[in-house]
């Protein structure tokens, strides 16, 4: 897995809530038995016309987002199917980070990313950043008024610095375990195999049908 430490890239926006993994990578591409080749098919049904041409009405096809590697999007991104193909498609389409807002609902807030998507992202070095609704609104406004805006995401410092003048900075939270894994590009299976003795000991006494 490619480690994530610091990344600078153009920020693009796809301002819709509840973007599901069927929309990120439609089912016809799930027949592949490979781990690669999904990038050009990310957001397929929105991205291309029925004639197979780039759809000029799709936000991410705008010229000003060419070469983008950071995506700002809506709440509950990656909901629905557990398909890791969605994360592979985004990574292979050049995204290194996705930013989305938590949604405030009275006292509680709904997380920016669906659970399984968030886990799949971490396994593939894709950084997902949850900000507040206000922060994302501000970010969207700045992207709107600054064509080709770049941002630098520093995972060590947990900061997003926008290439505006003056620079705007957004701080973000991340689970320490996920942060460490991303920074080191760690292989989770190798990590777990360090505890193989614990697993064996557990199996010796585990009775799935008894208390």
């Amino acid at each position, binding site marked *: 897995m490619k480690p994530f430490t610091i990344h600078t890239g153009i920020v693009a926006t796809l301002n819709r809530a*509840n973007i599901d993994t069927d929309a990120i990578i439609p089912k016809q591409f*799930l027949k*592949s*038995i490979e781990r690669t080749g999904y990038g050009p098919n990310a957001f397929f049904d929105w991205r291309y016309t029925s004639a197979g041409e780039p759809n000029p009405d799709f936000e991410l096809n705008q010229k000003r987002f060419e070469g983008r590697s950071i995506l700002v999007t809506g709440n509950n991104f990656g909901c629905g199917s*557990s398909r890791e193909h969605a994360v592979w498609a985004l990574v292979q389409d050049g995204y290194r980070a996705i930013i989305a807002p938590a949604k405030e609902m009275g006292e509680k807030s709904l997380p920016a990313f*669906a659970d399984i998507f968030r886990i799949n992202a971490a*396994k593939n070095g894709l950084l997902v950043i949850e900000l507040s609704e206000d922060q994302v609104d501000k970010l969207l406004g700045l992207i709107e008024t600054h064509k080709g805006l770049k941002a630098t995401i520093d995972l060590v410092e947990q900061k997003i610095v926008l290439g505006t003048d003056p620079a705007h900075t957004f701080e973000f939270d991340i689970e320490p375990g996920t942060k460490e894994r991303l920074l080191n590009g760690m292989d989770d299976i190798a990590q777990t195999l360090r505890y193989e003795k614990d697993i064996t000991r557990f199996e010796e006494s585990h009775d799935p049908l008894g208390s």
Partner: protein
Amino acid sequence: MGKTLFEKIWTKHKVRELPDGSTLLYIDRHLVHEVTSPQAFEGMRIAGHAIRAPHLAFATMDHNVPTTEERLNIDDPVSKNQVDALRKNCHDFGVKLFDIGDDHQGIVHVIGPEMGITLPGLTIVCGDSHTSTHGAFGALAFGIGTSEVEHVLVTQTLVQRKPGTYKMAFEGRPGPHVFSKDMVLKMIGAIGTAGGAGSVLEFCGEAVRALSMEARMTMCNMSIEAGARAGMIAPDDTTIDYITSKERPYAPRGENLDRAVAYWRTLPSDTDAEFDRSLTIDAARIAPQVTWGTNPGMVIDIDQPVPEPGSTEGYSRSDVDNALAYMGLKPGTKMTDVPVDVVFIGSCTNSRIEDLRQAAAILDGRKKADQVDLLVVPGSHQIRLQAEAEGLDKIFKAAGAQWRYAGCSMCLAMNPDQLQPRQRAAATSNRNFEGRQGKDGRTHLVSPEMAAAAAVAGKFVDIRQWLNT
């Protein structure tokens, strides 16, 4: 303080805590299908990893499988390649496979319970979000991605953060023609498609206790549509009857069964257990549900009109505008005036014998409307055989339905069963996302009775009144 059902199973399966505060959790059963597993097996080959517990993994083919005779000879070379890959992987790694043509083949979430692979108190995972279905038995069951599939194959564990608990009580009894499908759609409408995020739902209350296992599976199946990590229902007599009343090849027997039952009786949440969140829903006030938009939370009572943009809590004006444009619906339209082109009765949500019986009861002595295509797809080959033994297939065929072989079919359009652009479907499945049943296809989620009635009427109907007319 008492413990919840979830906490009891979580604690029992904790291998150890990890330095970052997460838990290494032991996995008792791993279900595998052709779509989300090939890259995991390939990863193992590349890394030289062995499978740790092949006897705890069970595989089948469901997503790609044609539901006609073509299934034994798949035309699409890409689908065939994926199906062949699973055969080879199961062979090479020693995993039990219920292949196409096997008497036990079917949708992965249908065959697990049917064969007694799914049992109370277990941890169950599958590279598929609707693994939540198995929670109906009081198991902790959740969907995982392909990297996690590989992690389970190699280590029989997963690294997990402890989710929160969310008690979902359905009090009172639903009226006639209101099913667990309507109950769970109502709930998703109330809390939203992210309302359960980070939580394990425990469904309880009088209306849940009264449900059959089939109906409980429908309910837990759709927990993921509320964004929940899992959904669970405490095991009780209904659960134990289901497991013991039929020959289920992987269920415990004799002394093992007695010991297991004693354990299962300890699983229900203690009366003084505390949940992180809770919600009570009055089941008596739930009407038959129908979705109008492009996610399962965009749902209304059948006797309500399509909502106006700006009037729906939790959705912005543009969310509603986009959804209505995609669905080809105008605000204010009565759902009972909306025609359907296709009716799909099937999927891991509603393809079990009880669902087929409900649909057959509506279709018995009636005919589908001429312009409607009606597809009835049993969830497993066992269900197909049972339905035929009960004569349900004859009712379906007489009503003009296509009676198919088991598979995911039109739930996700990875196989030949697909909607054409702008075709409108009444479907008993679980997702009405854009393109889910075919590019530009329009899906409305309903119960099996409502789907069957829509096939006859050629449009959505309020089943409660329609049956009296």
